[in-house]
């Protein structure tokens, strides 16, 4: 299943999309017009470039500080959040548990979670997660 469709399957996710780092190409699903998705793509791309530039500056102070390369960013609003990892974005409501689930899926697909995301998500419960799941 495509990552965007996976995100849209979660209740509370308003819209999710993918943008190109160069150019204006983008794709999306959810409650958003094509023009809004284009604007969201531009906004997310420029913010991603900005935080990458900031990480470059951090690394000048501390080479192995652990922030580079940046995976993404989150803006946490009053009732809505915008999550970006790599070149994917997701607009979601601030319902309990949703932000962590969205970030886990995004990071599993384009970030740094190498093992099965289900194992990662259930690891918070403690114990032998593999035994419980499989």
């Amino acid at each position, binding site marked *: 299943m495509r990552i965007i469709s996976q995100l849209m399957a979660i209740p509370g996710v308003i819209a999710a999309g993918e943008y190109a780092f160069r150019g204006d190409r983008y794709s999306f699903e959810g409650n958003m017009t094509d023009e809004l998705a284009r604007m969201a793509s531009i906004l997310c791309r420029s913010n991603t470039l900005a935080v990458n530039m900031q990480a470059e500056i*951090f690394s000048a102070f501390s080479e192995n500080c652990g922030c580079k390369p940046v995976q993404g960013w989150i803006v946490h609003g009053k009732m809505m959040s915008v999550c970006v990892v790599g070149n994917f974005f997701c607009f979601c409501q601030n319902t309990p548990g949703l932000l962590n689930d969205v970030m886990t899926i995004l990071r599993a697909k384009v970030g740094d979670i190498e093992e099965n995301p289900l194992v990662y998500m259930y690891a918070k419960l403690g114990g032998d997660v593999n035994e419980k799941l499989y």
Partner: protein
Amino acid sequence: MSLDQLMQVPGALAAFQYDDKGDLQAHQVKEGNELTPQVLDLLAHTCVANMAIATMEARGWEALTGQTGFEPVQGFSLVGLDWSAVVGRNHGVVVKNRDVDYEAAFAALANCGA
């Protein structure tokens, strides 16, 4: 809420407090990581800048689209390779990505502003 309590957030590596300009006021760092006061000060400045940009974008987005719920911006997180910096108004916490709970971190930071 104090920095001691922010350090109780799952995976916390450092907690810090900064003024409205981003100058570091106080900090706590867990032993064994490379987060120096200099890096935290720089991080605090970028967080102030990113919160201001996010507020500008949220305000513009709401005005342009009619969608609501973004303002006021409660927090911002920079997700790095090994850790994430999660910040509220004048406090921030750096959490290990392996153990991160973004919602717990944002909730703890909201209590700092209360």
